[in-house]
């Protein structure tokens, strides 16, 4: 009975996946037909098959791998530092009301500034180099993750804390074993959102100020009016954002099995 239910659940998931595949296929077919028709110039809308062959070309020559690699390293470095520090600072602020009172106004003032808004200041302070995009991504990740962590820690039901206290747990043990694990779903909401945002920000930063990376490759393609390369870059960006978000979804599912 249980096996049968599992089988039918799996079959239903497969059917859902197939259903989602249909509009994508339809979109690609329409794209291909439109690209090959005389209604639109090929330079403005190359057919999908040409995009695939350009993708192969860019991979074969190493141009895509080199630029993508740079963007990935920048995102990973900036995001991991920003997220880890955001979680640490958010945990301390959410748990200790005095520290929260001291630093909360500062966070509230800095949090609304868009990450790209820091770009002119950072270009003057640290110049155009590898540190610049990493710092931008750090800023982009730190504030939202910190804010979400503070909310997650503060919103843990006080009764769980009281219950743990009466069971003899110290303040640090309660934070480690009760409060932080229960705040994880909220922390992960911030991480998932910012994982996507980090990619959007790095592309913008590379387009404006950095000569390497996927964003810079798009800018070079724009100068050469190479729509096929721009579309390849956009598709790669879409896949990377999707993979980053899926990674955090999987990680969350593993760490919050109880949900």
């Amino acid at each position, binding site marked *: 009975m249980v096996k049968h239910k599992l089988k039918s659940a799996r079959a239903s998931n497969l059917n859902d996946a197939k259903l989602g595949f249909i509009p994508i296929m339809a979109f690609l077919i329409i794209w291909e037909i439109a690209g090959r028709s005389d209604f639109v110039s090929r330079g403005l809308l190359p057919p999908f098959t040409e995009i695939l062959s350009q993708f192969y070309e860019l991979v074969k020559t190493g141009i895509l791998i080199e630029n993508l690699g740079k963007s990935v390293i920048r995102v990973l470095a900036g995001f991991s530092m920003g997220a880890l520090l955001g979680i640490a600072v958010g945990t301390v602020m959410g748990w200790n009301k005095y520290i929260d009172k001291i630093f909360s106004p500062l966070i509230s003032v800095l949090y609304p500034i868009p990450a790209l808004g820091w770009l002119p200041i950072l270009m003057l302070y640290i110049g155009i180099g590898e540190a610049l995009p990493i710092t931008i991504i750090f800023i982009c990740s730190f504030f939202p993750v910190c804010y979400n962590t503070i909310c997650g820690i503060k919103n843990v039901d006080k009764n769980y804390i*009281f219950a743990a*206290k*009466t*069971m*003899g747990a*110290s303040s640090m043990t309660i934070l480690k074993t009760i409060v932080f694990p229960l705040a994880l779903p909220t922390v992960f909401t911030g991480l998932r959102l910012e994982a996507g945002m980090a990619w959007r920000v790095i592309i913008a930063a590379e387009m404006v100020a950095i000569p390497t990376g996927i964003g810079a490759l798009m800018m070079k393609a724009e100068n050469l009016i190479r729509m096929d390369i721009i579309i390849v870059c956009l598709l790669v960006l879409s896949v990377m954002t999707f993979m980053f978000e899926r990674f955090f979804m999987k990680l969350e599912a593993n760490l919050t099995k109880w949900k």
Partner: protein
Amino acid sequence: MEIKTKNLSNFILKNVNLDIKDGEIFALLGPNGAGKTTLLNTISGLSPYYGNIFFNGSSINDLPAEKRGAGYLFQEICLFPHMTVLENTAYPLKTKMDKTIANEKATEILKSMNLLKFANLYPGRLSGGEKQKIAIARALSAKPRILLLDEPFKSIDINTAAHLREELKNLLKKLKVTAIYVTHSFSHAEEMADRSGILIDGKLLHTGAKHEMFFKSHKNEVSNFIGSPNILNIDSLKTLDSGLCEAQCGDIKIVLPPSGGTMGKLAILSKDIGIAPRNESSTKFNQFEGNIIDISEKDFHFKIKIAAGKNILFSEISKPVFDNFKIKTGNKINVTLNLNNIRMN
């Protein structure tokens, strides 16, 4: 563990002096907002206070909540949702001993309470009754010095709650744990406790044996809370063939559960006296004829004064019931006493 509070006061409590003996289950009754939960929080160290609390004669005023050794069952079932049943049960033990030993002990406790089958499940997969049973196992696992129970079965269905109350009482008596049981229900208090107290507006206005409150004259706020019971003097008592007792109280005969000792008085709350328009003479036991001699209305309830022979009884009925019966002063009615709601002293 003996518990004693002396002049316990804070933002709600006003000079609460309470003595609870070792191994005793003490029921704390009172209306909403009386300070019952605050008293439990104060004893457990979760709320600040003035005054003194003693465990076995030693002051615990300087001990923080985590060192008082008080187990606590909250109104809401507070099992940690991110931990399995085994991890939940082992949690208080892990604060005192090695993790492996704590898990072994927790497994033993779950086994002894027939809960081992749930060990690897998360609380979200369990029913309310199962969750609260595990919360009891967790609260008792670390052998608390006292157990504070704040209406622990409020969110559970009536039948499961009755079963859990019985199981909890047996466990507490077996393990000789001193406990304070907060409840709104007189019957639950009588079922669970050795003694009870009434807390109103932060003041402890009565303590005594479990039925005692119904036979004592009280200050206005206490009698308002209890509901002014009808007190009947027993003139004579005989045992029936069925094993039940029959008490002669003035002109009425009342059948009672078997009683080992002698009894002098009966108490019946006015809300436990049922009335109905008299159609024919009744042959059921604990049902007799009465005459309505007065009707008064208070807070959407009607207080009916009834003469049954020379006895005067008061019954309390709600407005819809009163409107349905269309009774008036001078009417003859049937009066019914529920066997389970008669308190004996």
